[in-house]
């Protein structure tokens, strides 16, 4: 059973979160600050850390950075600031996901499960942590900003489904991905994705990836099997 470590300076919040997670099959330990977190990590092993951004003493961002250099445990950042920049900074410093307070506990559980799923998927050879800016064929994919930069430097915003789809493609370049596996990998916590909507999202994404120079199709259809992202990805 995956074990969680909850770090939040508010005693009631961390107790409520830890109790809820435990009830939903994610046994959790709650601690109040970064020092306690380190102590707990030395004693036991955890599969995911839920970390508040604003903590007394050493704050969450610094803790996240420290965690990234010392382990590969997935981190979900919680923040009461909820602004765009703290989200970007959190993800840049190595958090795997970000949740703004006040959050729904159901949402937290869904995010934890998604992060754990990704961590398992990562063991089969894919890059350990998706980097925030990826490049392919002159395009830039900025994940934290959910946008593409075309080879002629135009910002192209992506919808949520296009973003998820492209993330999946970029994480698995030059591999045939069946519709089923795309559905599985590109699914968000609250969305209802069908085969048909995957095809639709692919065609829209193709439209956005068509640049002025008319280069070859980046997303190829593999008949009877699915789709293949045909580009060398660097990050």
């Amino acid at each position, binding site marked *: 059973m995956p074990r969680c470590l909850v770090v939040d300076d508010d005693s*009631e919040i961390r107790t409520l979160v830890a109790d809820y997670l435990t009830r939903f099959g994610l046994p959790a330990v709650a601690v109040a600050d970064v020092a306690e977190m380190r102590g707990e990590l030395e004693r036991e092993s955890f599969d995911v850390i839920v970390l508040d951004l604003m903590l007394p003493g050493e704050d969450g961002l610094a803790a996240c950075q420290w965690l990234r250099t010392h382990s590969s445990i997935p981190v979900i950042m919680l923040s009461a600031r909820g*602004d765009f920049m703290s989200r970007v900074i959190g993800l840049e410093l190595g958090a795997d996901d970000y949740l703004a307070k006040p959050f729904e506990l159901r949402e937290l559980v869904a995010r934890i499960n998604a992060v754990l799923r990704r961590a398992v998927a990562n063991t089969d050879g894919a890059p350990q942590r998706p980097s925030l800016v990826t490049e392919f064929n002159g395009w830039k994919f900025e994940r934290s900003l959910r946008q593409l930069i075309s080879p002629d*430097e135009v*910002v192209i915003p992506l*919808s949520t489904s296009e973003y998820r789809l492209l993330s999946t493609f970029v994480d698995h370049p030059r591999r045939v991905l069946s519709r089923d596996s795309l559905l599985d990998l590109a699914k968000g916590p609250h969305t209802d994705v069908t085969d048909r909507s995957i095809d639709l999202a692919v065609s829209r994404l193709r439209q956005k990836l068509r640049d002025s120079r008319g280069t070859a199709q980046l997303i190829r259809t593999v008949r009877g099997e699915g789709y293949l992202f045909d580009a060398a990805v660097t990050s």
Partner: protein
Amino acid sequence: MSRLFADTLFKRLFVLMWLALIASHFIGYFAFHVSAPFVSAANDQSQSSAAAGPGAGPALPALRPSSPAQDELPSPLAWLAGDYAIRALVIGLAAWLGAMWLSKPMRRLADAARILGTSPSAVPLIDETRGTQEVRQTARIFNRMQQRLTERFAARSMFLAAVSHDLRTPLTRIRLRLESLPSDPLIERCYADINEMNALLDTILVYLREESDAEPRQRVDIYALAQSLVEDMTEAGHSIAFDGVPAVAYGQPKSLLRCLSNLLDNAVHYGKEPEVRVSVEGGRVFADVLDRGPGIPDNRLEQVIKPFFRLEPSRNRNSGGTGLGLHIVRELAERNGGQLEISNRPGGGLRARLSMTRS
């Protein structure tokens, strides 16, 4: 003593006028005496009534020859006209130079004020070591004002970040406590209230944060932006029509997205048949958000853009309106070199038009 040699506006103007006067005399002298050698030097000293014209004060020695006895000379009227033309030219040139002197610091001040008006910055905007004493003093005062404004903005942002944190923590606690209770219609309503409070916090913070937001300006595909937004809202269960042409504008991507998203939220909340259209005309890109709702009475179209103004407070409360949406759109649009226009559509409903600079 230093005051005596200080570079003041008075001294600059005095020297300029003095130089203009001397120059006009010299040019006049050369024009009439050197190029017309038949005029005797004695004529210089004579004071004629014609010389005391409105252009030449009593201090000016007359240049006009005034001996009507010499038949070969042009008429005194022609002399007068020629002399006045030369003086007008020289004085005009001097006035032009003087105006440049005077208006240059004013232009710098205007530029600095414009920059300050759009984004407060910590770097002093005007050079305090250039220009006359008066100009330097104005620059110093302006820079000090700018510094104070910037400090105040920074303090306010800090304060707001703190408030939002301190309000969101108890909100989180309430939310979590509610979640540990068995489901109940009353609890659902509490959730709705929490969401409303949080949405208000979000909007206010966004509104106040925009001032200090330094998102770089880039070329943005507005067609893709509008289409992504429509798609996300469609996924959330709204039905929105979309139509457009490829269009690239110059601006801040996240700000433009926020603009369009606020307009579309309004159309979805208050109107029917929401629709987004992207078009291009000359140097502008237009994103129109249309609906078939009740529209807004013509005499209140200006008011709805004002902060915290609500058309029908009772109705808007339940839909989470804060009265800031349109105001934020206008502020952001203007900062991006764009505009927000709101009008009623023929046949009912509202049209909100966001115009942007084409790239």
